[in-house]
């Protein structure tokens, strides 16, 4: 406005942020129109990592899809496993033994901690912290990944869950290791908070940036920490109380303003709540069977089901259509971050270039899941 009064002719410039850019968390592109440093318009472009997993899923048998779900959101393979496996169990009406349910919940909640550590670390990297919070997060993540490796044989691509249970029982030393990790994690989260929560630069960079009002968050189908930071109390673990979540006592951290800082706080809060669930799960885990016996050639009955879980990034759902054969007729992945990205242009308009990366970091995308 002021510029027009001075009579200077100004032009907007269009910048391609990505696909090769340090803070797009992979190959993601934003076509940004800038007026000076202010964002006038932003258009996300994706698909650089597209593998058409849904088509591959139709080619594979039901069991063969499990390792592919690992590679959706490659940070949280356990929760992807769980969503898919539960969808198939719903389709074929398989009962899961209690011990397996507990094992699954332990793994999924550990995954949530892993994911939030990385999300916060990456967010701080985008804000310009020279990798320090990121590496602190990675260090704790490593301890959890060791637990995954101990149980499933792989750190990231766990491929651990099976229809009607899990692949292996927990190894003998697992519970002891888990207990010591869970006991040590609160101190780490406290340290993380000391490093970041009150840091003035973090505050000025995050507060009031990328504000997402609750009505808009719902309208844009946002889920996960992004939604809850806007103050909408919607956690599928509570709403659907799938698996055995109704047995655990935990809170849903909510934000007030829906800005980047609240998303950070919600993630920190969720890590603490996950630890609470883990403690209860460690207490309550029973002995017993870890899976049900299924026929070698697994053919679920005809029909279609949709099952969703609260993955660390939001609502992860699988829509399966079965025609009674060994392969799914349709295998659809409702990935949380792909849909959360819908709101990105709305969040970014009017902010500065530096805020775009912060907002993108706070949405916490993984391109494996966005592009599938």
């Amino acid at each position, binding site marked *: 406005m002021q510029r027009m009064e001075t009579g200077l002719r100004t032009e907007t410039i269009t910048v391609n942020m990505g696909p090769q850019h340090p803070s797009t968390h992979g190959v993601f592109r934003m076509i940004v129109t800038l007026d000076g440093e202010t964002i006038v318009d932003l258009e996300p472009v*994706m698909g650089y990592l*597209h593998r058409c997993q849904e088509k591959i899923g139709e080619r594979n048998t039901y069991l063969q899809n499990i390792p592919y779900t690992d590679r959706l959101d490659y940070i949280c393979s356990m929760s992807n496993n769980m969503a898919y496996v539960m969808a198939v169990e719903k389709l074929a009406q398989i009962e899961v033994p209690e011990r397996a349910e507990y094992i699954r919940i332990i793994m999924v909640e550990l995954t949530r901690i892993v994911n939030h550590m990385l999300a916060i670390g990456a967010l701080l990297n985008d804000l310009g912290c020279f990798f320090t919070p990121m590496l602190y997060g990675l260090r704790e993540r490593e301890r959890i990944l060791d637990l995954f490796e101990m149980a499933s044989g792989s750190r990231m691509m766990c491929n651990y869950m099976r229809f009607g249970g899990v692949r292996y029982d927990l190894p003998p030393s697992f519970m002891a290791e888990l207990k010591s990790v869970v006991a040590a994690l609160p101190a780490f989260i406290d340290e993380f908070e000391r490093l970041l929560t009150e840091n003035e630069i973090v505050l000025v960079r995050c507060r009031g940036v990328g504000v997402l009002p609750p009505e808009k968050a719902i309208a844009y189908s*946002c889920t996960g920490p992004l939604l809850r930071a806007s103050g909408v109390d*919607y956690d599928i673990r509570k709403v659907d109380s799938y698996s055995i979540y109704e047995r655990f006592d935990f809170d849903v951290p909510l934000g007030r303003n829906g800005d980047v800082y609240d998303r950070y706080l919600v993630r920190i809060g969720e890590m603490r709540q996950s630890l609470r669930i883990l403690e209860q799960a460690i207490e309550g885990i029973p002995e017993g069977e870890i899976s049900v016996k299924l026929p070698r050639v697994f053919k679920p009955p005809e029909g*279609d*089901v949709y099952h969703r879980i609260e993955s660390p990034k939001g609502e992860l759902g699988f829509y399966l259509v079965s025609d009674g054969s060994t392969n799914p007729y349709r295998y659809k992945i*409702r990935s949380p971050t792909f*849909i959360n990205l819908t709101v990105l242009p709305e969040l970014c308009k009017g902010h500065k270039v530096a805020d775009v990366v912060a907002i993108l970091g706070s949405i916490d995308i993984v391109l494996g899941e966005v592009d599938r």
Partner: protein
Amino acid sequence: MSKEIYERLAKEFPESSLDYLEGKDPAISVNADDLFEMALHLKEKEGYDYLSAVTGVDYPDRFEVVYHLYSMRERKEPLILKVSASKEEPEVASVTPIWPGANFQEREVYDLVGIRFAGHPKLTRILLWEGYEGHPLRKDFPIEGHRAIGQEEPS
């Protein structure tokens, strides 16, 4: 639960041919012409404020778009809408004006299944590049693709 909504909807829209589909997840089959009105009604009157997923399925005789609706504020039971589209000219009304969150999902369905959404603000390919031939999630699309990348290399 879905049954009740089905009955209320049938009362509200007497002309349209609604159908109640039993199944593991009960669904309501909606006529493609009435989709927009009905979606608006569901959002405004029934409180289904959250559109979780939009899926396109290629059945042998028809295309089907499946909408998974939830209510975040009132926490109602989920509602599933199914809309059929013809094999030749699949087109369904876009619900992006009602739920903006459908934007990318409808683009994805258009991209991968090839169902057009009338009234979508920007219906272009989203995951594949502009100029790509065909829609991969159609059953007649060969698994190895129309044209393999790097085929000239000796395998």
